[in-house]
């Protein structure tokens, strides 16, 4: 797995606050998991204010991705293996 930016992604929210990302995931995704900062998604430690909500819809992973100059994006990537890995390893399923 390479850098997140090299994967085929869709941007759901751009320049969003961490609260907006959390609310979107909790409202729109069929299942979500709350994780702590540092939890790895696509081999990269996730950045954010805990709890960070990660959404799953089948094989689609919805997660926040923060860049210092551009703020936080809420991204979606279709990846069966990563979705299953999150289901196996994320600490708490919320929905």
């Amino acid at each position, binding site marked *: 797995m390479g850098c997140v930016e090299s994967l085929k992604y869709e941007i759901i929210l751009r320049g969003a*606050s*961490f609260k907006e990302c959390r609310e979107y995931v909790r409202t729109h995704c069929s299942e979500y998991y709350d994780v*702590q*900062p*540092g939890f*790895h998604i696509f081999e*990269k*430690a996730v*950045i*954010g*204010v*805990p709890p960070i909500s990660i959404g799953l819809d089948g094989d689609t992973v919805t997660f926040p991705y*923060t*860049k*210092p*100059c*551009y*703020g*936080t994006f809420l991204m979606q990537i279709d990846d069966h293996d990563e979705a299953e890995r999150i289901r196996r390893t994320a600490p708490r399923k919320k929905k």
Partner: protein
Amino acid sequence: MSGVKGTAGKQAVLVLGCPQVPVQTSIALYLAAHLRKKGVIPVIAGNRAARLNAEVSDPDRHYTGEIIDLDRFIEDLAADRRKYDYYFIFIHNDAGISYAATVQALTGVTVVAVIYGEHFKEMAAEIEFPCEKIAVKAVHNPMPLKKKIDEVLPWVVSNL
């Protein structure tokens, strides 16, 4: 190096944000210089642009020392490969808050949030996790932030 009792050899990391606010690099170098005077070794973490600003401003590394990539810094903390004695997180936007929260959650220690820029009040109000805040409006002129750091740094180095 005069140093402060108990600080010799300790390390502080200065986590820089995007360098779009002019005071960031000058304050980072100022803070690094003052930490050195107290016997604390500064390490700078930032994205490429923030690192280059620090490197070009201090070509002989009088003030800075080790300068590391921001992603590597986070990965090392998450993997428990590296720890520091002090964490100064530079914040002028929402991303800065996310990085500060991440460092606080990964380390469990009290981080120092250095909050500046046009929206410093909103940024300070957004922070709900425990930390020490140094917050002042400073965009082009570094003096208000310099004064705050002068006031707070002795306490930070002695108490955190």
